[in-house]
């Protein structure tokens, strides 16, 4: 398949029905994208396809053909959301954090609390009660 991964043209051989999650983690070595449930419920595997947040565990690789895929690694360590999650302790165990941050990148500038809650409703966190995540995103 051919696609753009974190800004770089990428070509690799994989079964078209492979989960995008496995392609990213195993073929591309990008382990920042996590698997929590394998059925699109928890959002830990959230990546962007052409700017839209998707659960990569339920996306077949073929569907990413020709698209721009962005993972947590593509944001870099200086991304304001990464900094804000650090400062506000938005990450506890950290396993939902990459997916949470990827979903948060789609919320636009200065989102309202209502917009954040709706936008993150597909991303489960069992540690924080979400309050610190809201603080991080609103601080950004």
């Amino acid at each position, binding site marked *: 398949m051919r696609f753009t991964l974190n800004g770089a043209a990428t070509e690799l051989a994989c079964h078209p029905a492979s989960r995008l999650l496995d392609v990213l*983690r195993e073929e591309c070595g*990008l*382990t*920042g*994208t*996590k*698997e*929590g*449930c*394998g*059925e699109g*419920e*928890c959002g*830990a595997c959230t990546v962007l396809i052409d700017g839209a947040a998707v659960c990569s565990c339920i996306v077949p690789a073929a569907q990413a053909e020709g698209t721009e895929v962005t*993972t*947590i*690694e593509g*944001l*870099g*360590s200086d*991304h304001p*959301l*990464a*900094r804000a*999650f*650090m*400062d*506000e*302790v*938005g*990450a*506890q*165990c*950290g*396993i*939902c*954090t*990459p997916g949470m*941050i990827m979903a948060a990148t789609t919320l636009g500038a200065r989102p309202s609390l209502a917009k*954040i*809650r*709706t936008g*993150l*409703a*597909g*991303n*489960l*966190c*069992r*540690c*924080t*009660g*979400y*309050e*610190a995540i809201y603080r991080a995103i609103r601080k950004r």
Partner: protein
Amino acid sequence: MALHQNPVPSTQPPAVGRSVPRKDGLGKATGATRYADDLSFPGMLYGRTIRSTIPCGTVREVRLEFARDGFTVVDWRDIPGRNVVALLTEDQPCLVEREVRHAAEPVLLLAHADREALLAASVHIEYDAGNPLFDPEASPQSFKNILIEKGDLAAGFAKAHLVVEGTYRTGHQEHVYIEPNGVIAVPEAGGIAVYGSIQCPYYVHKALVTLLGGAVTHVRVVQTETGGGFGGKEEYPSMLAGHAALLALKSGRPVKIVYDRVEDMQATTKRHPSIVRHRTGLSRDGRLVAMDVEVVMDGGAYVTLSPVVLSRGAIHAAGPYRCPNTRIAARAMFTNTPPNGAFRGFGAPQTEFAIEVHMERIAEALGMDSARLRERNALAPGDTTATGQRLGEDCSARRVLREAMRKSGYRRKRKAFAGTDRGIGLALYYHGSGFTGSGELKLASRASVELTATGVRILTSSTEIGQGTRTMHAQIVADALGIPYEQVEVAQPDTSVVPDSGPTVASRTCMIVGGILEHAAREMRERLDGMPPAEYFGHYGPLVVTRQYEQPEWIRWDEDAYRGDAYATYGWGCDVAEVEIDRDTWEVRPRRLTVVTDVGKAIHPALATGQIEGGTAQGVGYALLEQVSMRDGLMANAQLTNYIIPTTLDTPPIDVVLVENPYPGGPSGAKGLGELPMDGPAPALVNAIRQLGLDLRSIPALPEAIMEAACASR
């Protein structure tokens, strides 16, 4: 008692009490942190567990219905040591020999380099099925009985003006750490190393040594970054690590086993369901004069941690109240379901749910305001608990009650909500810090501080599972040494490197292990005699200071009579819950939770607040959403599609107030706080629903249950 003040030089701002950056913050926020499933080893195989499909019976035949090429197959006969998961009682096999006691019990292990081939392999097991037992009250087999007695119960009831009775029930709860259980076993130089998502490396170490016996020269257990635990990675990783190690030994190759969500939910532990019966005698003016409490917990098919879960549940069963005549009789029963185990709160959320809903009903029976009833009976310094423990100045029950009512506007809202679709309710609770009774003495935990070329390094088996262990320990050590927080590193828990600091459970990691580290760091400071650590290291080379837990001399505990100082101190909390009901769908929406907790001292206010918020959200799920549906002894809704934990839209705003009433024996006065917030939300929410005229005595309070309560009240 005065608190020891750390002699931090004026140039060095103290780290304790400040929300310094998390040691692991950047790695987690950038996705760079590696968890068990992110690791790979050369030649690694994948492992799979074949499990029983019946809840009770015996295995007649196991048939492998696949070509064996490339497969490693392990059954109980491959176990070189003893076929047990070593914990409290050695009754649980690592692999079924013949007898099956629950569904999803491990029978056979497979490994293969190719995951597709592994998953395609078919194994058929023939059974002689037995008659399963699912009702703990009908079970003839008790894992543990506990009796706590204080005063004269009969005399107390004889004096009572009013007696109120009630039965309260709680269901299973699944941990839903977002990272499922996973380990990798790696053969190394005659021994075996296990890397994994685990709370208690030395528990796993003990289990592996027992299981593998003389077949290995050494066992090394390394905790990898762990994506949540909440008690769910306390005991089960010993089983899982054993499986991976057996496959690795037989194949001679590294073996990774990572459960998918369904297997994790079906096979691993859950919170014990409970049935609690109260019979309470009251004086005319609303004082508790007699409390008779019966606690039944469903232990599942093996003992695992049920005796200690029961113990904590029993000790907390009378609630944070004073009563001269009390009897608490508790038992944990065998049933044919997967064993129930450790889950944040460890028995106390069940029994505190019961007493706090019961208190609401007592207030109604007395015609008394329920907050006033609590205020009148709340434990105060000088009072004794059900085990006869006399409380000191670190008791804050009344303080948190008053603060929660003030902060939430409880009285005003209680009036305003009357007769509307909104309700408000409260719950007062407490939680013992650290192991029960003489448990900490027996653990004899150790922790070390060692010099490095740039500062110091902390060596402890306490694990970072999200709660902030690394950060909070580093803060305590930095201040005790008088060095910047940034100069303190924390070693990855590896049993070949770190001493046994006891398990990362029981709200003990800050108060107990943090306290040991504080002592070790102070001793090191004396040894350095004013020289900065890095400079001392450069001049004189390595230096390690190890200290062991020293129990305060005043603690007295009689394990046989269940009398005495059950815990060195308690955290105290009061939750006020506000709800709104939709009378068409019978859904109850939580609107706001006000949570006031006394944590002794917030070493890191943002981390402490995060613990309270997160525990409160788990309590919201426990109360309103999370139902484990058991069918033939197996969780039937073992998916996040139909086992619902709170999302952003289900979790109300949580107002946290941290009260700091210090425990003199904790580092800077800190008490345990990790489990405390789990105790309050469920009764506070059910009591808020109660203001709507709905008499609920069990959780989860799903719309179906609320509708039934509504029909019953008509």
